[in-house]
């Protein structure tokens, strides 16, 4: 029969490389019409990083995501970047782009200050305008400012910057140090049904609450969480590369390497934990990798809750679970005095 269980797991996860420098550089060019072009050396590998980086540049310049074009991933034209790794793009590349945008914006402010009759420090960029802080009626369109900067003053609004997360080397004997600039936190809770005759696990739902600092784009954050959970499901129950006694691959294909299909995935409910990290761009940290971290633990804790067996070796295939259930029953029978 089917037995229901629930399991919780939480985790922490760092953003960026362990101690080692992992800088990003970026260039933000404000065009004469107030739109912008961002140059970054990172690569879009599906996470939506270019969209998020565009949003960061747009926010810094007070323009819309659609006003920004992101050029990426060409060693001839884009600045150095450590790349799409270690959940670092939003945090590290994002900071570089934010700083570059601030540099470009400073040029715009210098141009706009005399146009608006105030000091540059009194200006802000908002709603596609350069305006006086707390006095939005006094404003000039960002395009007009950018055009004047470039065409009249000969000072194109281009900013370049780089950023590297601050770390402190670890002591070789004790490991004490500050290996990472910041960390994110998350909890996932799984609900499962375990068939105690076959060992089969059906995951009914997973609730995931993830911290990523400010969610630059909540839709993309949810997408990362949902995808990470699918990898966690595979790790928990299905996936394993197998070798024969001679070290040759047994299942190097998608027929026999079992990963989740749409029928194997549960309902996923994602919450983004309200957070703000002052060291990240607009308070953002990262989210790519941690999404896959607590899933297997939550599922196996739910299995334990359902049928009382602790699986210590992954993947928890139905066979492993049934074997554990049978061993538990045999143990219980032994304990009953004759």
């Amino acid at each position, binding site marked *: 029969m089917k037995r229901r269980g629930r399991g919780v797991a939480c985790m922490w996860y760092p953003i960026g490389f362990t101690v080692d420098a992992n800088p990003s550089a970026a260039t933000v060019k404000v065009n004469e019409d107030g739109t912008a072009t961002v140059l970054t050396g990172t690569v879009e590998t599906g996470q939506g990083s270019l969209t998020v980086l565009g949003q960061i540049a747009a926010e810094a310049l007070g323009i819309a995501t659609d006003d920004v074009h992101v050029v990426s991933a060409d060693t001839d034209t884009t600045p150095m970047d450590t790349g799409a790794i270690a959940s670092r793009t939003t945090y590290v590349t994002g900071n570089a782009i934010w700083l570059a945008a601030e540099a470009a914006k400073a040029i715009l402010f210098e141009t706009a200050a005399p146009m608006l009759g105030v000091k540059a420090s009194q200006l802000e960029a908002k709603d596609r305008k350069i305006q006086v802080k707390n006095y939005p009626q006094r404003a000039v369109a960002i395009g007009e400012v950018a055009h004047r900067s470039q065409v009249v003053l000969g000072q194109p609004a281009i900013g370049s910057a780089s950023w590297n997360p601050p770390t402190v080397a670890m002591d070789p004997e004790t490991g004490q140090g500050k290996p990472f600039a910041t960390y994110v936190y998350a909890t996932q809770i799984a609900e499962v049904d375990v068939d105690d005759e076959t060992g089969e696990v059906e995951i009914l739902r997973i609730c995931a609450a993830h911290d990523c600092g400010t969610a630059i784009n909540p839709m993309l954050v949810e997408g990362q969480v949902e995808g990470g959970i699918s990898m966690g499901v595979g790790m928990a129950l299905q996936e394993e590369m197998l070798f024969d006694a001679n070290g040759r691959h047994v299942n190097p294909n998608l*027929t026999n390497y079992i990963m989740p299909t749409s029928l194997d995935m549960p309902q996923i409910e994602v919450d983004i934990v309200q957070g703000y990290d002052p060291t990240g761009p607009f308070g953002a940290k990262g989210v790519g990798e941690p999404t896959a971290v607590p899933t297997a633990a939550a599922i196996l804790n739910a299995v334990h809750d359902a049928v009382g067996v602790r699986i210590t070796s992954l993947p928890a295939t139905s066979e492993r679970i049934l074997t554990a259930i049978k061993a538990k029953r045999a143990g219980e029978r032994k304990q009953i005095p004759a």
Partner: protein
Amino acid sequence: MIDVTIVVNGETRRASVPPETTLLKLLRENFALTGAKLGCDVGDCGACTVIVDGMAVNSCLMLAGQVNGRNVTTIEGLATRDRLHPIQKAFEDTGALQCGFCGPGAIMATKALFDENSDPNVKDIRDALSGSLCRCTGYTKMIEAVQEAARVLRSESRNSSHTRELKVTAP
């Protein structure tokens, strides 16, 4: 070499290819329709899914000769001059695709589902997408997108005078 003539996205196309050419290769290399992707080449991943005579198939598992004289719709045949297909729009709006490599296959599998069932429930959708492996999304937003597209298509078929390109037949 064998000669094949097929109707691809409404257009009659001809090619002369070696008999061992798959439909996927024919589309990608002879007809420059690179929307269908090669992800595994053995029918496991579904990235090569196209519609042949109304049925979603793995184009890596069909020989070009097998489709001679038949009607093939690929991802390139969904959008019209006027607009994105509602499935494509829903996938875009909900963020249902991340790396996008499985997308054309998943969208064609969805199209085939709608041709058979205009009001699928979540189980039907999961079943229809089970031949399209995705590693990025956990299928969650993809399922939302399919539901959204189904709503749009149903409301369009109710106001059929406005319907342009898509015919949704009742099961």
